[in-house]
């Protein structure tokens, strides 16, 4: 019998797990895919929102602000990439300026600090790349950017080292409430891998959170996957923009953002299209055209030649457009973290902390005396100065062997990604942890080598190595095996 089972190893589930691990109990995270961070958490804008956008009084507004304030410290404690780069919301015409003012007013009510409306001149100083159209902007210096993989993996790894169990490839098929002989209620969780029992459940199932919720509650919710296409530009474009640049929704539509990533790429996106398929992460050419056109309103000379990849992510959109958090009124012990769409990544640690606290109170969990909230991040040789780098390679020669030439990722980093607790099991798993294959050749050169390293480290045949788990095997066999 577990005290808590968390369903979903995205950023929310992993954040809940991490804060829950500060309490004493038996906890388990169930994930339907092979790795953490493989749904909505892996494909989004990677933005830490300042918190002016969410409607005042909403849960989104509350947890956005709290989360935004937690990231700087958390990124240091848990060793993941975060940068406080500030954001700008552009007004594309004079008519948009009242909208900026309304946003600012909402932001101030939400508690966002240092908001400022800047005119074109100051805007050009802050962000010289801005094109000829924008007339003013709302400047939010507290906004930031984060590596969403890095953050999620850090939460998960820290939770794991503090005793939380993780089960992958374990989809939840059914949930029923039961009572033991002493009248204590508990949950029976049917999974693809057998039956588990737990005192409480956390629903952090992303786009599937409605399915899970509706298994136990009469108050039905409906999560619509809202697809967003993105374009990612070569690191060569690093520095093209300094801030995360949004557009105020206006006569040109909702607008798209152009932002640097923490790794020096430029990201453009997202589109917004409501779909039925909860796995519908296929991109569309209409989406690409839309992005290029809208981003072109903010910038005159976007380096669109430098696109290295495109992808789509699904936001878990709920009709009320707010997070659904906490214990369901008609299902005691069932805690929702549903409808976590933007600003979900920002809000995740604040939600995690809050839900963990609620669970601890409900279940009467004492503090975990052995809790260690610190985690060493992956060694990034590129962040070292030359004497440090020389010393590292002397000590660990595998860091002198570059496998991914585009992102200059060494074998040492790849081994670290695989050997760590909750380590990578697939090419995408390696990519998300240490960026091998994330660069301009998109794994063309390094994937054969990484497949060999994975096979050796995991003790499996190369033919079993997958791109991203399931039946995504990279090769189908050996040459001439059927000739």
């Amino acid at each position: 019998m577990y005290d808590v089972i968390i369903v979903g190893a995205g950023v929310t589930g992993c954040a809940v797990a991490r804060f829950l691990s500060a309490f004493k109990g038996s906890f388990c995270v169930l994930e339907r895919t092979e790795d953490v961070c493989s749904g909505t958490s892996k494909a989004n804008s990677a933005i830490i929102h300042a918190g002016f956008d969410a409607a005042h009084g909403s849960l989104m507004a509350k947890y956005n602000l709290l989360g935004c304030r937690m990231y700087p410290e958390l990124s240091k404690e848990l060793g993941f990439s975060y940068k406080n780069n500030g954001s700008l919301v552009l007004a594309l015409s004079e008519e948009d300026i009242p909208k900026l003012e309304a946003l600012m007013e909402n932001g101030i009510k939400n508690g966002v600090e240092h908001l400022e409306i800047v005119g074109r001149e100051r805007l050009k100083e802050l962000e010289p790349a801005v094109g000829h159209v924008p007339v003013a902007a709302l400047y939010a210096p507290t906004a930031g950017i984060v590596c969403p993989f890095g953050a999620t993996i850090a939460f998960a790894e820290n939770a794991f080292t503090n005793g939380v169990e993780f089960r992958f490839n374990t989809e939840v098929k059914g949930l029923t409430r039961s009572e033991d002989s002493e009248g204590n209620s508990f949950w029976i969780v049917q999974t693809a891998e057998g039956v588990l029992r737990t005192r409480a459940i956390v629903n952090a199932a992303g786009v599937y959170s409605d399915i899970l919720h509706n298994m136990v509650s009469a108050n039905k919710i409906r999560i619509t996957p809202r697809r967003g296409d993105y374009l990612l530009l070569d690191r060569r474009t690093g520095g093209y923009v300094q801030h995360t640049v949004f557009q105020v929704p206006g006569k040109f539509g909702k607008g798209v953002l152009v932002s640097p990533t923490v790794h020096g790429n430029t990201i453009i996106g997202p589109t917004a299209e409501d779909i039925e398929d909860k796995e519908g992460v296929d991109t569309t050419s209409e989406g690409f055209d839309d992005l290029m056109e809208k981003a072109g309103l903010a910038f005159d000379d976007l380096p669109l030649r430098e696109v290295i990849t495109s992808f789509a992510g699904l936001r878990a959109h709920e009709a009320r457009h707010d997070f659904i958090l906490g214990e369901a009124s008609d299902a005691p012990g069932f805690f929702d973290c549903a409808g976590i769409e933007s600003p979900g990544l920002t809000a995740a640690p604040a939600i995690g902390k809050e839900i963990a606290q609620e669970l601890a109170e409900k279940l009467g969990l004492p503090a975990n005396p052995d809790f260690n909230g610190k985690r060493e991040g992956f060694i990034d040789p590129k962040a070292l100065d030359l004497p440090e780098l020389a010393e590292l390679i002397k000590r660990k020669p595998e860091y002198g062997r570059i496998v991914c030439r585009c992102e200059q990722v060494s074998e040492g980093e790849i081994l670290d990604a695989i050997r760590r607790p909750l380590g990578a099991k697939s090419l995408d798993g390696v990519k998300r942890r240490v960026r091998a294959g994330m660069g301009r050749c998109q794994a063309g050169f390094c994937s054969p080598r990484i497949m060999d390293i994975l096979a050796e480290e995991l003790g499996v045949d190369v033919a079993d190595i997958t791109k991203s788990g399931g039946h995504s095997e990279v090769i189908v066999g050996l040459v001439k095996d059927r000739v």
Partner: protein
Amino acid sequence: MERTEYNLIIIGGGPAGLAAAVAAYDAGERSILILERETRLGGILNQCIHNGFGLHTFQEELTGPEYAQRFIDKVLERGIEYKLDTMVMSIGQGEDGSKEVMAVNEADGLLLLKARALILAMGCRERSRGALNIPGFRPAGIFSAGTAQRLVNIEGYLPGRRVVILGSGDIGLIMARRMTLEGAKVLVCAELMPYSGGLKRNIVQCLDDFGIPLKLSHTVVRIEGKERVEGVVIAQVGPDRKPIPGTEEHYDCDTLLLSVGLLPENELTIGLGAEISRITNGPVVNESLETSVPGVFAAGNVLHVHDLVDYVSEEAHLAGERAAEYITACKDAMCAPPEKEKQIPVAFSGGIRYTVPCTIDPDKIGDWLKIRFRVGDVMTQRKVVLCLDSEPVLVKKRRVMAPGEMEELVLTRKVLAAHPDLSSIEIRIEEDKA
């Protein structure tokens, strides 16, 4: 103490780097270091196990590894130093005009090297799916043709059993045959352009001989399959290269190979600050194949993408010789004294996309100089005219010219001698009405 100073450092031990090293050595230079990122010399030739290499250089038909070995032997005979498994992280210039190279490998750790001259021979990479904005899912089973070639020829793995190829670049054509021979079924090769991007001989030997259809003016409009490729949809494109609705055809397949172009790999060059051509994506060079940074030369696919390795070797030979001359001019300093240069831009028209070199100093041409170029479209019944100071000095008739086949003109010292005060060089393509 590890030696850290060389006269010449060559970045890349593929065909360009090897030929450049041999030429520099034969021109008298003895302090040479080749840095190679792979575990063996030879570069991409090691995975090109088909034949057809060396017809120009050796008057023989060799496989890629055989061709490479000829040059590796020359490097070994001369005792030229090289380091394998060594990745150059950055290059730059010191205050004394020296070229600085930062590299890493397992054995030496961090290497901080200095040289009087550099030859860039890093080769190229393949354009990826992402750069094409092909919509759809992102499952396993999408490979660039070169990655598939490595998997098959080096690792012995089969990337897939039912294959669609997008793009008719040479590697894609070679892999159509290779995958067929290894037991896969290649269904179709789709090419966006109305003409093939590869050599004619490869269309015949790799597609026609195996009954694989080539669909010109077609592209992939959709990739299906969430985990592994399950199918692709191909559609015809109009003159604007946009898909024509209603022409979609579905192919059941588990693999999509991309052979949609090669890109010179110039991240180091960009970091150095050398000028890069928007057309070739390679550095802008003069008649000595010297980049805009004096003492830094470039040759092979890092400079512009070649069809034949023979031409890479020839080009690299020139770079090697000129680097050796540069080093001689350095005397005791780490760089050569600046020269009064008389660089004349090579002007071009009539459908030429670029030339290598981009500028020429007539005083620095040996007995002859090859000017290489590509055209932007298929053309028939043409003549290539070389004009010096607007006077036609050379006319070369070409029945067919295509973007997939590199063209060349030879400018000789003898022709130049008649124009002592030369101020303009132009190459034109004209219709050949005769």
